[in-house]
């Protein structure tokens, strides 16, 4: 499997970040970074990472299925993650969530037909004092109003 030079460099650094014989530690970061590049965690990737960190594919599967940010299915180009946990709930996070679902016509962990946007209702993302908050991929959007949400989704739809 071939990755971009930047990703390979990240892998190389990860594999030397841990004590000797502990390369397995690199597994989760590797999967996450590779997912960012590939879009999802494919079987091929599972096998590749297993080989590189010296475990079996099943051991990778056990681990990856535990973490909620690791996805076996492709996400949208823009993965919109709306927090509805307590602080966001109190400040309108749930309404944002429903609004986004309605506007895009998709639900939790679903992507638009063109693969542009996917939605996920997420647990607390550590933006509680700036609630309601959401993340588009890794970018935070704080104190989001319904209007801002509309604008955001529109802009994501347009950018290709």
């Amino acid at each position, binding site marked *: 499997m071939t990755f971009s030079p930047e990703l390979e460099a990240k892998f190389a650094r990860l594999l030397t970040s841990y004590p000797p014989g502990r390369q397995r530690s690199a597994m989760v970061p590797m999967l996450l970074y590779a997912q960012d590049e590939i879009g999802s965690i494919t079987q091929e990737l599972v096998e590749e990472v297993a080989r590189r960190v010296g475990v*079996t*594919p*099943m*051991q990778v*599967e*056990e681990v990856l*299925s*535990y973490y909620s940010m690791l996805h076996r299915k492709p996400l949208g180009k823009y993965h919109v993650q709306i927090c509805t946990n307590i602080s966001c709930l109190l400040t309108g996070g749930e309404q944002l969530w429903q609004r986004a679902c309605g506007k895009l016509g998709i639900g939790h962990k679903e992507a638009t037909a063109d693969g542009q946007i996917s939605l996920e209702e997420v647990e607390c993302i550590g933006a509680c004092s700036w609630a309601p908050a959401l993340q588009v991929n890794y970018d935070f959007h704080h104190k989001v109003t319904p209007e801002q949400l509309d604008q955001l989704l529109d802009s994501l739809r347009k950018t290709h």
Partner: protein
Amino acid sequence: MPNSVKFTINDRQLEAPAGTLVIEAAKRNGIEIPSFCYYEGLALQAACRMCLVEIEKAPKLMVACTTPVAEGMVVRTESEPVRQARKYMLEFLLSNHPLDCPVCDKGGECELQDMAFRYGVGESRFTEQKIHVDEKQWSPVVFYDMPRCILCFRCVRICNEGMGVNALGVINRGAVSEIAPNHGDHLECDECGMCIDICPVGALTSGTYRYKTRPWEMEHTGTICTHCSNGCKTTLGVRNDQIIRGNNRDRSGINGEFLCVKGRYGFDFQDHPDRLQSPLVRLDGKLEPVSWSKALEVVVQKFQEVKGRSGTVGVIGSNHTTNEENYYLQKFARQVLATNNIDHHRTGDVVTLVDAVSGSPAALATTRDLYEKKAILVIGADLALEQPFLSFQIRANYRHHQAHVYVVTAKPVREDNYAAAFLRAEPGAELSAVESLRDKLKGEPELVILYGDAMKGGAVRKLAAFGASLGIPVQYVPLVDYSNSRGAADMGLTPELLPGYKPLGLTGMTVAEMLAAEDLDLLWVVGANPLKNAKLQAKKAFVVVQEMFLTETAQIADVVLPAASAYEKNGTVTNVCGEVQRLQKAAQTMGAKPDLEIIGLIAKEMGVAREMGPWVPDKVFDEIRRTVRGYDIPVEAIMTGGAAQTMPVNGRIPIEVRVDSIRSAHDNLFTSGTLGRYSKMLNSVLEKRLNRE
């Protein structure tokens, strides 16, 4: 007690070695603390929380499965808070568990069901929707029903830790966590079924047993597996003379709970439709069914005729018939047919070793030693595939006692994974590789050496000399193949040695020589298939075969006498480590008879039954005990379902054994000579594997 601590459980003053877990300390004193995830010998989990107990001064209930006893500790296992906690733990557990006990395979022997009766709440307060997931088939033998799974992780641990196979894992998290097989939708593993056996509920069920019967509808008989030489004890569940299940859930016998795929599922040859049910006699060139009396008449007539004219007789015995049968077969051959042309398929060099270590009665290791001794050296054998229980023992030794394991084999083997050192050596080159381990081995306090069929004759002597030169106690296991290979050699099914390795002045023909002898007049084959890959040169020889199936050998026979399987008779067998154990008849034979009985009937017809007799297995065994060197074992041990090791090590054997004919069949986990060919289950597993390749 050294380092022991005093404590009380339920007001009883108790004492146990420091470090003992509360749950174990309680168990050893007859106090039951319920648990699902705690399992002796496997990694601690503290996951099921069933074992919560009250410990004075602790702020909350503690899990007995990971808390060690301490001086002055006061434990209560039946107080109100403990009962309450247990009750509600069960309620939690049952909340998502289907209540399909009436159709579940585990019904009647389900640990969850038992516990619900003993400690549970009557009615669940759970009124929500349960999780439903379809049942999955992971292999011909393993089915998984996720909703029934209580996530005790026993299966994962027995597979990873016990078997070293790592075929099971846990995926997802939270309430949707489930057990998963190593290849997405299917398992690629030893198919040992240990996971099914160890499952406390009906989440894992077996392809051979599922939906066939209820546990209480079967008769259970503890006997010995008839496949490989390891001699695992197995409990056969039988209904209407059909063996439905094999397991060793009571963990008795040398193997505890261990069974491999053959032991657990490979019993189904027993009611294979091709089983011979009636004697066959060649009439006009064709084998035709006849009555027992007719067949015996033909046999005896021929025996007497050949004997009368001092014709050439060959007798080939079996390595899976009982000691009693083997002993009587050689006795009959030598005394009645007056021949030393008696042999069997030899699979390992026991004799040279017995001679080489003569005088050191402790030189032969038991299966227990493989679990207890500090260091183990494996030479020329893929134990995990060929000697599965021995492999299990060594792995357990490594896990529990950090034993140092050394490996010298031609190809990579499972033991490499945890070996202190492993070397690759082609057959014949093992000794020099072993030599290079000398310094390491000398540093060990003790050693057990297991060697395969590549080591024979001079090589075994050199190996024994090497062992002696280490200056530490060394024990050996000469590896052999079949359920009674060791017993066949011990019982004198050899042309050069009488029972107990008593040398004969003269010597008879080996199997190969018999097959090659053009003047052979009579060939009597009991429980063997020498013609599988060979030809009988003597065109005129009259061939009598005692067999379960119409094997290649039986096909050319003049008379075929249908024989009982090991599961249909009593007697003793001797495993690879020389441990004698008792077969117990689990099922009735169909038209077949045990070989001992058949030999007896022939003897009776020939008028020698009385002088040779008695013909009862236990009585024959008495004679063996009296006359066969090493077999004077405590009979109570084996009568009660245990094992006793034979010690044929007092005295030299002043002849060179004919090691040229020693050859292991290298049956793997899924093959077992003739028996394996007639096991549907083993074949379906094999087929699945072949299809994948």
